């Protein structure tokens, strides 16, 4: 087990380091200059600015400084807002995190349930209905779902009934959080339900399910005690990548619903060529997702004893 944890930690660290170096060089390769504005800047001011942001030092020194600063938790000062990037992240991230967690939890619970229903009622109209829902879910981008729900539930429903069920934008009341969370969760929900169905069908065909049946266990007990517990394993492994898609998907959903989260800042900083901000947020997202993946991997190692076994053989 220690070997497994150590190996995972090592890869996580290597990934973060690669991402840091990659971000650094990408930022340097960017066309344009953050100081180019409407006005021409005098030579002396330019030099002072370059010195302030450390842009006059050799590349290798800049890289080492960048990495050591990043590991100390200093991501630099945003060129556009003139505030530390970590400050902006600390202010905006809670919104994104809440939105992401709501979507992730909703997607996991509903997706797993849909998958179970489809597998247990295999071949019936419930199965086809759930799977049709799932394939539509993976095929319709979140910005389409978001805009449509915003239009239908936010605008049309209000116009039709005169009662404001769902606000069009914002992130304060409970009702304003429902549509964005649902829009963001839709594709993950669909992925999870498809995966859960396949895995559930696989488990239901195993011999120990037959044994449980012949022991005379009730259908309910077989499904919940024997099948679901084993079938849910593959779903846990994809939670890492799904967290990544939820967080990046939030860029668009936050824009549509005017949620003051990280996605909005990220898209804006791209348009403003705010180097430190982009690299800071990229790095933050990268580290966050690597940690999420690490957590999922470790959790999997604890839950499923077979993982330890195969790792031990290597």
């Amino acid at each position, binding site marked *: 087990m220690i070997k497994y944890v150590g190996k995972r930690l090592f*890869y*996580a660290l290597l990934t973060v380091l690669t*991402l840091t170096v990659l971000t650094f060089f990408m930022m340097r390769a960017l066309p344009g200059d953050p100081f180019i504005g409407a006005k021409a800047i005098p030579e002396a001011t330019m030099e002072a600015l370059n010195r302030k942001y450390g842009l006059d030092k050799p590349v290798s020194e800049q890289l080492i400084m960048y990495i050591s600063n990043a590991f100390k938790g200093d991501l630099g000062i945003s060129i556009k807002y003139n505030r530390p990037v970590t400050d902006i992240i600390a202010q905006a991230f809670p919104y994104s995190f809440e939105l992401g967690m709501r979507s992730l939890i909703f997607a996991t619970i509903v997706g797993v349930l849909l998958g179970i229903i489809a597998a247990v009622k295999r071949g019936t109209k419930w199965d086809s209905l759930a799977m049709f829902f799932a394939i539509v879910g*993976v095929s*319709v981008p979140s910005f389409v779902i978001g*805009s449509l729900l915003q239009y239908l539930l936010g605008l049309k429903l209000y116009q039709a009934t005169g009662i404001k069920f769902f606000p069009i934008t914002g992130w304060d009341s409970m009702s304003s959080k429902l549509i964005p969370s649902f829009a963001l969760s839709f594709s993950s929900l669909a992925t999870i339900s498809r995966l859960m169905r396949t895995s559930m069908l696989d488990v239901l065909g195993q011999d120990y399910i037959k044994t449980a049946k012949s022991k005379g266990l009730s259908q309910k007990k077989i499904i919940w005690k024997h099948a679901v517990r084993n079938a849910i394993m593959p779903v846990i492994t994809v939670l890492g990548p799904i967290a990544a898609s939820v967080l990046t998907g939030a860029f668009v959903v936050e824009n549509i619903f005017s949620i003051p989260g990280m996605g909005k800042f990220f*898209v804006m900083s791209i348009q403003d060529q705010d180097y430190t901000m982009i690299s800071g947020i990229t790095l933050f*997202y*990268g580290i966050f*997702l690597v940690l999420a993946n690490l957590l999922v991997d470790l959790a999997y190692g604890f839950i499923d004893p077979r993982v330890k076994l195969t790792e031990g053989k290597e």
Partner: protein
Amino acid sequence: MDKTMNEKIDKSRFEWVGANVNESEAITRPTTSYWKDAMQRLSKNKAAMISLWVIILILLLAIFVPMLSPYTMSEQHYAHTSQSVGFRDPDDGHLHLFGTDKLGRDIFTRIWSGARISLIISFTAVFVNVIIGIIYGGISGYLGGAVDNIMMRIIEIINGIPYLIIVILLMMVLEPGIVTMIIAYAAVGWTGMARLVRGQIMSLKQQDFVVAAKVMGARPSRIIFKHLIPNTLSVVIVNITLAIPGAIFTEAFLSYIGLGVQIPIASWGTLANDGSKVFQMYPSQLIIPAICISLTMLSFNLLGDGLRDSLDPKLRR
């Protein structure tokens, strides 16, 4: 007693016809190849067949509408801006099937010009992914051992970083445009294909025909490209079909947040982005590109599922 007697069937009603040697050895059905068999199974899958026709229709529209349309994609009609679906120009009688946008451009023409761009980007990106993935996965799977280990660890590190972040970074470094978009997506999208091909090749290389080829002195490159890769083709085809919706989504997503193709070129993503700005007033301008994106993705997903079922019946659920 009486009852059992009645139920006995008279033996004289049966007759020994003798063995017919010719007929028992005869082939009753025409022989089918693997691909023919698979296509037969596919043609029985209604959803997949409808999807295939939808895809063909979309391709035909994307090819011919911009050629045959009376309008060009950037031609403006100042007198008729933001017209609704099915608007007929009172001056020349031309029909704007999907209406016009806020600059008076014909949306029907723009949608299918956009389709060209979106489809070219996604097809090329997936094609490049497949080539890289097959070569990388083929080498890694065939050589095995330390080389395989290192190659797979590299993939693990690339996969650890969310691909959209890499694509966004690349899109900013390179000049925005069609080629950049393909490069950006191709740079990160091949890992899944490489893993898949590696897995297939690892199991295939144990088989006798590979040993036979080796014994006859075939070089590794010949074994990989002549013997192993053709056998992974069915898995690759299914994966291509399922990778295209991902590429379409990425293109639409990037264009939607303003990082994709730049004006005057339009893609489905930029059209959706334009439409979203006037969505509250003219919902059709967003809904039409949205339907196009979703319908294409849906068709490829359904076709991919159908292909997987028919090419690999063992996996059928």
